[in-house]
């Protein structure tokens, strides 16, 4: 329990650190978000000079950061707005609340990520286990080679190849959008099937380029566990192979991969920006790019914060549940956690 409290404290500290960092990027940096925002508003006015006071108010109301107030006051304002869940208003979407945009797009990113993570781990774990059982065979060697080769392809390169060859040349999968146009969102076969169909290529880009290293790690872990004494004892006791494979080898080999799972969540959340741009998939990363293109600082900083918060919270949940999987963690030896 002590460990849990410590970990929770750390998560909250991280959230605070990220929020402070983002304030620094907006307010303290010369040419930072506040300056970009002011010059953009000035441009929008086209010739007619906006008085400095009015400009300041506009920036303050949209970014929650007052460029002229003393730093501690501006900081307090920004933080209290964040705590209330207010990320300001977007310029790109005509003053719409950044909150509403995030609420509309975040579920899609989460959907894409869960699909990729599930697919990747399902393939990597089973393949790694089979490779370990057939250690040294042609199957093992071939898969090791293919795994290394595929994991040296960046996911966005895979995405580009998929779009060109599976999207345009042989149109098997749609290459843009979240669901088929003309289908109303709801619990219908068309909508859900269409959503999966649209998510297939982005998810495959992650899976194909990511499973290799994971499978190799699983293979290594399984080989190590297979050599343990308790596995030999279990065999000598005449336990059925199935039970040994699942309960004795599988469990212990998968455990260290839990850390990989947590790391891959952070990696995918980040990588989703690139894939969502390439597939024009309106998730949270896509909106972050819109914020960047239109120099829409509230949208950019808001999506950045939500992505970061999402990863911090996901890692916190992951670490908190790790104790359920590995009882050793509760003994307070926290060096085991990573």
């Amino acid at each position, binding site marked *: 329990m002590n460990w849990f409290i410590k970990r929770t404290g750390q998560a909250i500290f*991280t959230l605070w650190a990220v929020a402070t960092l983002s304030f620094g990027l907006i307010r303290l940096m010369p*040419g930072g978000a506040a300056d970009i925002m002011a010059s953009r508003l000035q441009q929008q006015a086209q010739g007619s000079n906006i008085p400095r006071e009015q400009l300041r108010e506009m920036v303050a109301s949209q970014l929650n950061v007052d460029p002229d107030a003393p730093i501690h006051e501006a900081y307090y304002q920004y933080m209290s707005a964040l705590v209330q869940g207010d990320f300001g208003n977007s310029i790109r979407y005509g003053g719409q609340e950044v909150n509403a945009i995030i609420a509309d797009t975040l579920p899609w990113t989460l959907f894409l990520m869960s699909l990729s993570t599930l697919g990747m781990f399902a393939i990597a774990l089973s393949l790694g286990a089979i490779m370990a059982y057939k250690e040294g065979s042609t199957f093992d060697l071939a898969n090791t080679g293919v795994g290394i080769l595929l994991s040296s392809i960046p996911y966005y390169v895979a995405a*580009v190849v998929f779009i060109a060859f599976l999207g345009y040349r042989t149109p098997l999968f749609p290459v843009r959008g979240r669901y088929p146009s003309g289908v109303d969102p709801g619990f219908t076969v068309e909508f859900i099937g269409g959503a999966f169909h649209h998510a297939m290529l982005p998810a495959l880009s992650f899976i194909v380029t990511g499973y290799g290293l994971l499978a190799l790690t699983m293979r290594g872990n399984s080989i190590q566990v297979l050599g343990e004494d308790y596995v030999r004892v279990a065999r000598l006791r005449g336990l059925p192979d199935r039970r040994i494979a699942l309960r004795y080898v599988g469990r212990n080999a998968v455990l260290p991969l839990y850390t990989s799972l947590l790391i891959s969540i952070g990696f995918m959340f*980040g990588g989703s920006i690139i894939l969502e741009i390439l597939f024009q998939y309106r998730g949270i990363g896509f909106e972050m790019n819109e914020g*960047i293109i239109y120099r829409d600082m509230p949208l950019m900083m808001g999506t*950045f914060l939500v992505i970061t918060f999402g*990863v911090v919270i996901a*890692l916190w949940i992951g670490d908190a549940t790790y104790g359920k999987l590995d009882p050793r963690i509760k003994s307070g030896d926290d060096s085991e956690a*990573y």
Partner: protein
Amino acid sequence: MTVKPTDDDAVKPTDGGSSSVDGSRTDGGQMFSQAEITEVTRTQRYQEWFAESIAEPFRIAWSDWRTKVGLLIIAGFLLMGLVAWISSSTWFVLERIVLVDSPIANQGSPRLQPLEDMSHPLGTDMNGRDLISGVVHATPTMIQMILAGAVFAIVVAVIVGTVAGYKGGTTETVLMTASDVAMTIPGLPLVIVLVVLIEPQSPWLIGIIITINVWAGIARTIHSQVLSLRENSYVEASRTMGIGTPTIIQKDILPNLMPYVLVNFVYASRRVIYDSVALYFLGFLSFRGVENWGVMMHLAYANASALLNPEATYMLIVPMLPIVVLSFGLMLFAQGTDRLFSPRVRTRNEGKSNTDETDEPDPMTGV
């Protein structure tokens, strides 16, 4: 051969020693007249150091096919960088030598397919820039980015990891909390925001921005490694003898961390390649010429619609090849070096004890 005595040699050169008249040594001088045994010249020392720290690990690495192929690919890439550097150098001797032309518009007729015109074997882009020129001339800046990024990440990680691990106490808590926080922040979104706000031009700066929080994960690994290393008896021996912390870290701890440093250097390099190309490809970084493979991809994607148009797909594929090949080389190298992790090999490379024959380092001679 001139024999130079080194500072820590207890025995003086004995050419004249046996004939000297002071009676402190009667026959001992004769015994040590064969100077090679006791006197280690600086050259010999460097030779020994070279054999232990470079030649031996290299031989072990070379015996594995993965590291062999990986090293060859990395060497080829460095060679490509050298070719580009020589070709674009304006230094007086090198100015005349142009091995590969710089990529400029209208080098050839635009949109040449690969193998269509053998003076441009991989074809040209929509402005008539030769694609080989583009690929080759993007290499030096890529090397700069990798060096800046990977060195930055490794140096910070090693300092944070070893100091936290060895000192312990409050230092450890503060440093490790900082790494945990930095590690939880997803890298790419932070990098994109920083790049958009800072608009960096220099490849060195871009490299450092990309690895802005990569050090954290490596520092964690090194920290946990140091925690187990500091309990070793030879470290304890050094401590008992009153040797200072910086010396212990430098002489007893760091040599053992080299495999981790090497492997993580490779992974950090791969990260720099992936992310820098992605940043250019998606247009987050501004560019003037075709200074990165990502720029070539961006131009093919945005200006030649290479995805839709089968006639233009090669413009996207060609710059993708060096990325994949290079990261394949790095991956193979990293996968192969796990041999260097094996304790037997490491004992040999311990470097501190000169006893090559014994397998275990002697704690007494080890210091």
